[in-house]
């Protein structure tokens, strides 16, 4: 963005009185705001919901008719009559009533038994595998699958090419999935703290302070796609560059985000809770045409090693109510056809319960996809509880087949390029008119 347009943006932008009046650097994607009315409306948006800790797939999509299920879980099984029936052998957890409505309307896809070869039962490694799209049969990769998507867009692979676009995570941490060459995604927790404030008692002094602040935090080179190595490498100049990019991105986008959150409204009744709060912000940024296609939210607590039943019910209830409120909100604001929601967890849990009325780390589990433009219903094949490896179900669908479906069908970016090989795309997205 040239100095000129930057000034123009700040003076005509939503907030008007921008603080950083003399920046020669701004993340290029913010430049798009000016033209948002054009590109925003046809953009396809992906919202990732991460269920952290390892969601118990077998007590989420429940094979109640299978004797092996009942036998493996003497104290924590859920009886068929209590489930929300999907078929005469399969039912959803009773806390998922809202989602069942989506399912019945054909707007929720359940991909059964999703995993990857050589399942890793470490939270951290398995999470890394899901975030990077690698696995233990290949050399380790550390950049994220969405980070590579943004890099590819940067290289012009995406025909609609929003230059310099980055992912937005509503939370305190930056998901590894966003890590890319520039490593400058946005993590926003509290929009109100998302600004730098001068302290000068007069506006003139404040302006001088702002100017100096900008100078100290001005990334070298000024390029929009930062060639930084991606974070902290022990090399001081690179670390400094990373810090400066992070600061500038935050300050410039913070102004806009605050303005959008103020301007936009939520039109559905959301439950209380952190996931819900995050999704409320995402909905407002979407209806306000904030220029990114990828949002990331997370709900923690799924590591149910002990006394699982009550906790798991509470978690799933929160998940279901928050997501359905979000979809409802978008629908009321005529934005639902632009959004696909993808929910995953780093692994499922052991088939047999442990001695603490809980379950230990397992392997494959179902994934969930929501949206008005997806092909609802059951996808993939159900886990076979009579054919276990190390007490865990064997995966039938690779999670990268789901990523491929999203990349090819929704984000319109060749998945082979992003995932390093051709995983057979699942048929999850209806073609849009």
């Amino acid at each position, binding site marked *: 963005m040239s100095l000129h347009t930057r000034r123009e943006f700040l003076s005509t932008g939503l907030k008007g009185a921008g603080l950083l009046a003399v920046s020669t650097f701004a993340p290029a994607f913010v430049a798009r705001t000016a033209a948002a009315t054009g590109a925003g409306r046809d953009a396809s948006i992906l919202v990732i919901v991460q269920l952290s800790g390892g969601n118990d797939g077998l007590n989420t999509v429940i094979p109640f008719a299978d004797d092996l299920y009942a036998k493996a879980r003497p104290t924590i099984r859920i009886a068929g009559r209590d489930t929300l029936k999907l078929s005469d052998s399969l039912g959803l957890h009773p806390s998922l009533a809202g989602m069942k409505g989506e399912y019945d309307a054909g707007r929720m896809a359940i991909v059964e038994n999703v995993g990857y070869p050589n399942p890793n039962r470490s939270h951290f490694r398995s999470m890394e595998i899901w975030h990077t799209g690698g696995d233990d049969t290949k050399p380790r990769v550390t950049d994220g699958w969405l980070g590579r998507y943004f890099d590819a867009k940067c290289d012009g692979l995406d025909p609609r090419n929003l230059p310099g676009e980055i992912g937005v995570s509503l939370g305190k941490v930056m998901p590894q999935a966003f890590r890319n060459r520039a490593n400058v995604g946005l993590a*926003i927790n509290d929009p109100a703290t998302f600004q730098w404030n001068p302290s000068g008692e007069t506006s003139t002094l404040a302006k001088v302070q702002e100017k*100096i602040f900008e100078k100290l935090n001005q990334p070298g080179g000024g390029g929009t796609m930062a060639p930084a190595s991606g974070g902290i490498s022990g090399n001081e100049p690179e*670390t400094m560059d990373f810090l400066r990019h992070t600061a500038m991105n*935050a*300050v410039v986008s913070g102004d806009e985000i605050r303005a959008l959150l103020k301007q936009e409204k939520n039109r559905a009744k959301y439950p209380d809770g952190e996931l819900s709060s995050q999704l409320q912000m995402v909905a407002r940024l979407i209806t306000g045409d904030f220029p990114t296609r990828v949002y990331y939210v997370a709900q923690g607590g799924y590591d149910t090693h*002990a006394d699982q039943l009550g906790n798991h019910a509470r978690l799933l209830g929160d998940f279901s109510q928050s997501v359905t409120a979000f979809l409802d909100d978008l629908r009321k604001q005529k934005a639902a056809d632009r959004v696909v929601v993808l929910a995953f967890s780093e692994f499922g849990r052991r088939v047999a319960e442990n001695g603490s009325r809980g379950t230990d780390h397992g392997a494959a589990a179902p994934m969930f996809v929501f949206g008005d433009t997806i092909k609802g219903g059951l996808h993939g094949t159900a886990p076979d509880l009579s054919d276990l490896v190390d007490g865990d179900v064997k995966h039938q669908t690779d999670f990268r087949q789901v990523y491929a479906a999203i990349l090819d069908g929704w984000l319109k970016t060749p998945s082979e390029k992003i995932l390093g090989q051709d995983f057979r795309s699942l048929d999850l997205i209806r073609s849009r008119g």
Partner: protein
Amino acid sequence: MDLLAPLPARDFSPYAAAHLLWRAGFGGTWKEAEELAALGLDGAVDRLVNYRRSTGLKAPPCAEPLKESHRVFEERVRALPDEREREKERQVRRETEQRNIRELQIWWLDRFLASSPSHETIHPLEEKLTLFWHSHFATGFQDKIEETHPIWQQNQTFRELALAAFPDQLRALIHDPAMLVWLDNAASHRGHPNENFARELMELFSTGVGHYSETDVKESARALTGYGIDRENWTFAFREDAHDPDEKSFLGQSGRFGGDDIVRIITEQPATAKFMTRKILDAFVCTQPGEDLVEPVADLYRASGYDLKALFHTLFRSQLFYSAQAMNSVVKSPVLLAIGALKGMRAKLPAEELILGALRVMGQNLFFPPDVNGWPGGGDWINSNTLLVRYNFANFLMHGVSPDEFKTFDRQVNRGGNRRTFLETQRNPDAVDWSPKKQMMSDGAVRPVLSNKDIANHFLREFLQREPPRDLSDAITQLAGTDGSGGRRSMSVEDVNFDERARGLVHLIMSSPDYQLC
């Protein structure tokens, strides 16, 4: 191993001493750095490493065992006729303990702040290592423990064993009540072993991932069955009837193993020495150390029987530690950032709500690690969110601005867009008391003529404590020459608003990327 050769004594400048203070402790004043430098390299390292251990420290009141034990409480509550009454009692107990754990956080932060190479009883390296072990053996108050006493017990164990040999530390860990509850081992029994603790014991606490099989996890989980606690007084209890005494085969050895055998075998693995060495180097010496450095240091560490004291003696005296590769390569943790700044100001801890709120939003809520992996540290401290919070924290320290955001942080984040902005927030009574002028006078730093550059460099030395990069020095000098109306007017200690302007300089120093590193 040239890199581990000692630094020539003459190179141990006050800047080098300041670097040592940041890494082996929580920073300090420039005066402390000068005093440390005067001891010479060996003397300074001795002072920091050969401290007298804080054994037998008394629990602060907030961390004493609850008057009513878990069992007595449960019996009393269960006898209540009404469910609402029962829930109310439980709520009261929960709130009491939440208040207590916050007091313990403050207690610990006060120790960080008081620690100094010249302090009689509170030693910088001891507290720094206690914090290191808290993150390494990360145990959280929330969900499972929810009592302050076992958390303090564990904290004191880490303190007493801060420089102990690693096998001794691991042995203490498998007997630590808070850890056994946190990772579900307390309820693990033969026939149905819970693998949570056994897995993390290797993956996160010792060998690192990739050096054991799933069978090893299962077998060590069997060996650890029966390692439980007496919930009445939060002490370790070995439950014979729950322990699986049969033969196990673990990492290539077989026997009727119990927990101590597991620790012995784990610490025999070269992978353990490497994993721990990498972590220690990364935290104390240089970010992301290469394998060519990790291997020889790990060999040294293991060959010495994991003598951590000797290792720090070597590292803190080494040329490596004072090399360009190591200096300014570490991102300050939120605790280090906050405590270091307060030390520089010689200020007290801000109001409890504010300092705890600030640390939480910067990503380091003591006793509430994000998960059992602890705080990843390094570049993970920094993202668009936390970096701005760090800069805002500087504004709070210097001008008392923005505490509202720290206070209301937990409430409905999505309303953020409608809240008052910082600019609308006026200075408030919670502001930290600090007079730069008084500090300069008492340090004898006031000379008849002080140029803008002198003033800028004075504060850079006090807070950044390194040779300032040219652009930073120029920028702060420029600001020192700008008065309230934006015009050019030199700063003078005679000015009535000198303190205000000086705080403005330090605010900018702390709003620089340079200040995030040490």
